[in-house]
């Protein structure tokens, strides 16, 4: 029962995170590529309820930043308390020309122009980190999900076939998995990248990432599935089905693969975060989606720079989100595992 609660709790949390990220166009106040060059590395703005005079407002508001600079250099930011900029909710906004990322017409919140709202601060170019974070999640989270689906799908087919038919087919496929497990996939990706034309659009590089991660990742699940299939095919009811003249495909599909679904689900719970991390790693190394399109990997890549690491704590947002999401996925995998154990016993 506890396992069940844990399962629904983590699944629910993950689903809501994915929904928010998918609807980045609604939740994000700005185009993630829009630069505000006067607000480089502005810290997150505070949401205020109490104004300078001590009066309470139900509608939260922000103060704009005043920059103070000395000898031609930006020295820091300070809140301009002379005017409040209340948040407006459910705002309809016209699309601006040369907007790179198709946003939604409706936004969850905004402040009146020319005021700006940076709830998660800004990066070097004054781009809103919250918007980048949400749009970046689309790439990072879904790269993980889709790559896991791809490698699990491949793994199930390969593992099922190898386990069920056995003999030489099994040997060939399993030697294949060994080769794939030994492949250093980062170098493989470097190699693949080198063959492609210089400029690869964000979409192509997204699918390229998916492809490489998925194709090199099928080996491990395949071996796992094969083990389950090997034991399943000895079961009496399968022998019986075969006795009744059922075809191999039918048996595999109807009887054996369902046996493996629990293992596959648990495996998915582990693979997804692993592949999210793979995307992050690749973007971190500059092999993922290119600027100015955000992904959590290239947002974290900023932290490679010592001065960013040292000075701007809000740039860690994507890293923190990753930790949370990994915990949720591992909880989910854990709960699935428990459920599986209780179901089989």
């Amino acid at each position, binding site marked *: 029962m506890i396992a069940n609660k844990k399962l629904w709790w983590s699944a629910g949390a993950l689903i809501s995170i994915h929904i928010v990220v998918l609807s980045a166009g609604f939740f994000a106040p700005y185009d993630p*590529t829009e*630069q505000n*060059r006067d607000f*480089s590395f502005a810290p997150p703005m505070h949401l205020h309820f109490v104004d300078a005079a001590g009066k309470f407002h139900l509608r939260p508001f922000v103060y704009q930043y005043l920059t103070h*600079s000395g*000898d*031609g*250099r*930006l020295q820091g930011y300070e809140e301009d308390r002379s005017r409040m900029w209340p948040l407006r909710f459910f705002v309809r906004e016209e699309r601006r*020309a*040369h907007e*790179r990322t198709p946003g939604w017409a409706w936004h969850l919140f905004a402040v009146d122009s020319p005021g700006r709202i940076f709830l998660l601060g800004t990066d*070097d*170019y*004054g781009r809103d980190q919250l918007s980048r974070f949400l749009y970046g999640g689309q790439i990072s989270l879904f790269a993980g999900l889709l790559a896991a689906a791809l490698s699990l799908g491949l793994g199930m087919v390969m593992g099922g076939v190898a386990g069920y038919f056995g003999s030489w087919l099994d040997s060939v496929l399993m030697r294949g998995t060994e080769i794939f497990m030994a492949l250093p996939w980062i170098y493989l990706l470097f190699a693949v990248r080198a063959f492609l034309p*210089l*400029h690869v*659009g964000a979409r192509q590089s997204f699918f390229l990432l998916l492809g490489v991660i998925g194709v090199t990742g099928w080996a491990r699940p395949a071996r796992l599935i094969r083990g389950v299939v090997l034991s399943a095919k000895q079961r009496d009811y399968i022998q019986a089905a075969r006795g009744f003249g059922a075809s191999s495909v039918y048996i595999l599909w109807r009887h054996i693969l369902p046996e493996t679904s629990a293992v596959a689900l648990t495996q998915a719970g582990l693979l997804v975060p692993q592949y999210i991390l793979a995307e992050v790693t690749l973007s971190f190394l*500059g092999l993922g989606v*290119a*600027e*100015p399109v955000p992904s959590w990997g290239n947002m974290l890549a900023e932290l*490679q*720079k*010592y*001065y*960013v690491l*040292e*000075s701007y704590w809000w740039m860690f947002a994507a890293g923190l989100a990753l930790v949370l999401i990994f915990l949720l996925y591992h909880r989910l995998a854990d709960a699935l595992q428990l459920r599986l154990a209780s179901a089989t016993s």
Partner: protein
Amino acid sequence: MLSDGVLTRVIAQRVAWALLLATLSPALSLGARESASQAASTEEVLIAPGEIGTPGGRLVTSLRADPKTLNPATAVDLPSKQVLGLLSADLIHINSFTQGTESALAKSWKISPDGKHYTLELRRGILFSDGHPFDADDVVFSFQVYLDEKVHSPQRDLLEVGGKPIQVRKLGPYQVAFDLPQPYAAAERMFDSVSILPRHLLEETYKTGKISQAWNPATKAAEIAGLGPFRLKQYSPGQQIVLERNPHYWKMDSRKNRLPYLDEIVFLIVPTQDAEVIRFQAGETDVLDNISAEDYQVLERSQGERGYRLNDLGPGFEYDFLFFNLNDLNSKQLPEISRKQEWFRRDEFRQAISDAIDRDAIVRLVYQGRATPIWDQVTPANKLWVNTAIPRQPQSLEKAAALLKSAGFNRRADGTLVDAHGMPVEFSILTNPSNAQRTKIATILQDDLTHLGMQVHLVPLEFQSLIARVFDSFNFEASILGLVSGDADPNPEINVWTSSGGTHVWAPNEVHPLTPWQSELDRLMQLQTTILDYKKRKQIYDRVQELVAQYNPVICLVSPNILVGAKDSLSGIKPVTMRNHILWNAEQVFWRPTPARKK
């Protein structure tokens, strides 16, 4: 040279690199050291003015990559140049501080009235770092090597005047004559950075045709000798290079103490900028060169407590620029790029891009205000040659849009810019991610150009592959690079601006000038080398700058300030805006004695 911090390409180094040599002024206390007193009687040392220092100690600094070679005749990369600067010496040296020439291995020199013959008197009785005496034969041998076409020495370029190499004659054991085919404006500056090689060690190798492979990183330290203030002690590739004091160095301080003061200089190989900064901040290295503006900000905070001081030297000689592929691509199979060249070749197109760039934003966001926007190639640091009449046009998207319209470009309803054939204007800019500043500049440009309706893609590419595309395969559309002139004098720049030049980035080794302005650039750059009068030369070079600003063969963006740091207790350091910024006078650097010093 192109500066990434790693590769310095061809030409500019002629004059440029002289700076690395530690010449100038010397000093050394402690007369007790070896044979200073007896040597002084037979040896014509140079007495270097400057602060009298304390001998001893080691200085630790960092290099971003292993030097590719320790052979002065073939070195082109920056790490090699940095190390060689301390190991070798030239005949006449450009003082990085005064930017004027000064006596080095040549004690004095005379120029014939027609400007074509130079007679150099060499210092007598001085020794290579292995104790072997130096004389005119070494000079003749060195020039023979540098001028040999088979050696492919980068210095060869600068030893050619009007396309013909200079001639070297030995007049006596300590006297050498140089004959030039025509008068040469750079005059004695050309001897700078032509390091004198030890004939006794290299002649055999040269005769067997293997001089290019000599003195590679695997060579034993004992087989390498030079006339610089330091000599190689130990080289562990990938880790460190240890140089020790050259006990025979030919400079003394005003109290007749032989220079250099330091016993050792250690170069740690530290592959990234961030790691270099962290090591310096932690006190593991004693000096730090080429600090980025952002790191400077971080280091500034702990400046007092960590025992180092930082220096903003103001604008340097380096500049960043955007350029397009203007090569004649007929022979190459690159149809896509050839098609886009139709845009790149339009003067209006390049001018529009220059107008659309927010240079102030680059200064502010990339360099934290520690840079100067520029519109031509001469940076404000070069007071003698900068053309102040070049208009400093601020960003104007309206002007840019109007220019594009006049050149037949149009905006579609969705804002996309299309050319006369209706093709959307879309191109990619190559950058090297190892240079964070240039990558950031590219991101700013990308955004600026979106406002014109252009679609620009950024392609990060490892530096060597980028250079290969720009200089060899021509398979690129646009790129951002930096150049640094090695000398204030315009002469080394000839390789950049003449069509046949090796650093003519937008179309290297162009056979014929493809445009009228290129022909004019060629003519002016050649002309200025033969004119000895500064005012007339300045007029010519002013016109060169005008052409660059007007036709934008490269679109000059900004010139970053030179930012350096050194430990508080290091004395004798006089950072300069010319490279090598800190260790150019390494022989005069010393540790101020303090009881607390651990070294």
